[in-house]
């Protein structure tokens, strides 16, 4: 079905190792099902969780640079699942490639190796699209998700800035729609699919955060979605919290794209609670 021997360095990141283990587990399972070998980066550390926007403080690039250096040694592309890790690592790599003086200063501080810019940072969703292909995904589907109206929710960090992320169109993305179609589901376009969920404002400005995440959920509901599909643990958390007080018939389940893939591949043990009904019948 799929070519053997596709190997990647894999960076789970702090969140997938703790509060979003279900994303990690489902991601590894569907990768294996598609013949993708994920080798966890040895001795990894937090990517930093916020891309350093201040150009006058090179030290904030140490955390992502260490991860990039560790991945470089493996000789494979570096794949991530967390949208925030992908954003931070991809942009840090783009920054250090174009700022050689910053890279030299970092190399002077990091003892276990030098950043040379040889690693390509990828998101697993991009790997599935570009290296596996939708035809191969379709062939792996065991239980097509026929009739499932799923809203593809991208948020911000996967997409923007478009030239640096090299992932999809900044405001009219399509990779999740293509995936959902390959799995037999019906993608439901909705106006806020590439709008912010509130991100880290959940900590620093919770009122504003709730307004944004509620608007995203309502936008998807109004468009007729029965489920929201995401690639980001923070988006999932914010969208779940926005619905926490609602009666359950009014709640839209939020699932990782890897869980939706797992459901279609028949890997129900890792497909998560959104597919629990299908699992028990």
């Amino acid at each position, binding site marked *: 079905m799929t070519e053997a021997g596709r190997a990647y360095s894999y960076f789970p*990141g*702090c*969140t997938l190792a*703790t*509060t*979003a283990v279900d994303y990690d587990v489902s991601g590894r399972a569907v990768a294996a099902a598609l013949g993708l070998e994920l080798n966890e980066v040895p001795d990894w550390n*937090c990517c*930093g*969780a*916020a*891309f350093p*926007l*201040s*150009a*006058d403080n090179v030290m*904030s690039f140490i955390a992502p640079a260490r991860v990039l250096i560790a991945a470089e040694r493996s000789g494979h592309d570096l794949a991530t699942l*967390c949208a*925030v*890790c992908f954003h931070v690592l991809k942009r840090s790599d783009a920054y250090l490639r174009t700022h050689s003086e910053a890279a030299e200063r970092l190399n002077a501080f990091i003892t276990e190796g030098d950043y040379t810019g040889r690693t390509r940072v990828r998101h697993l969703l991009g790997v599935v699209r570009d290296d596996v292909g939708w035809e191969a995904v379709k062939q792996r589907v065991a239980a097509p998700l026929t009739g499932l109206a799923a809203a593809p929710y991208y*948020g*911000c*960090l996967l997409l*923007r*800035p*478009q030239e640096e992320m090299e992932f999809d169109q*900044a*405001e009219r993305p399509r990779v999740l729609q293509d995936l959902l179609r390959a799995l037999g589901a019906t993608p439901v376009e909705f106006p806020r699919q590439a*709008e*912010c969920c*509130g*991100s*880290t*404002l*959940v*900590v*620093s*400005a*919770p*009122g*504003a955060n709730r*307004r*944004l995440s509620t*608007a995203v959920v309502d936008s998807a509901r109004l468009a007729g979605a029965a489920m929201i599909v995401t690639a980001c*643990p*923070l988006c999932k*958390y914010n969208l779940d919290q926005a619905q926490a007080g609602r009666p359950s018939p009014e709640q839209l389940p939020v699932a990782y794209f890897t869980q939706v893939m797992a459901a279609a591949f028949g890997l129900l043990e890792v497909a998560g609670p959104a597919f629990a009904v299908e699992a028990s019948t």
Partner: protein
Amino acid sequence: MRVVLDPLALHGAFIREIEAISEQNLLACNQCGRCSAGCPLVEEMDLLPNQIIRPAQLGLDTVVDSTSPWLCAACLMCEARCPKGVDLPRIMDALRQIALRRGESRVVAGDVDPALLAGAPQMAIVGALRRGEK
């Protein structure tokens, strides 16, 4: 009469500080307002995103006291839509950095809601602290 706006003559040190941190050319902005039209957080901001840039262009450092940089989630919608290639979230971050270097932390680890510490994704806590702590 020809009017020339010279940033060095206006308030050079402040503009140079923002440009050094953000690597953005403040004077590239021509106030078209597309950033504010697309920003999802304008309801909570005291100055709209384009209104943040204008005083900064004129070297007025009172803009550092605005609440808007603290409400910017760096979602980059403005960056995607700016016809002049200005990366406004970098300017917002420069203003946060200048405020933090002058004053107090806006997010303090010990004050984070225990419910968040227990349930929120790690990167929400770490990201918020990296943006708002000295």
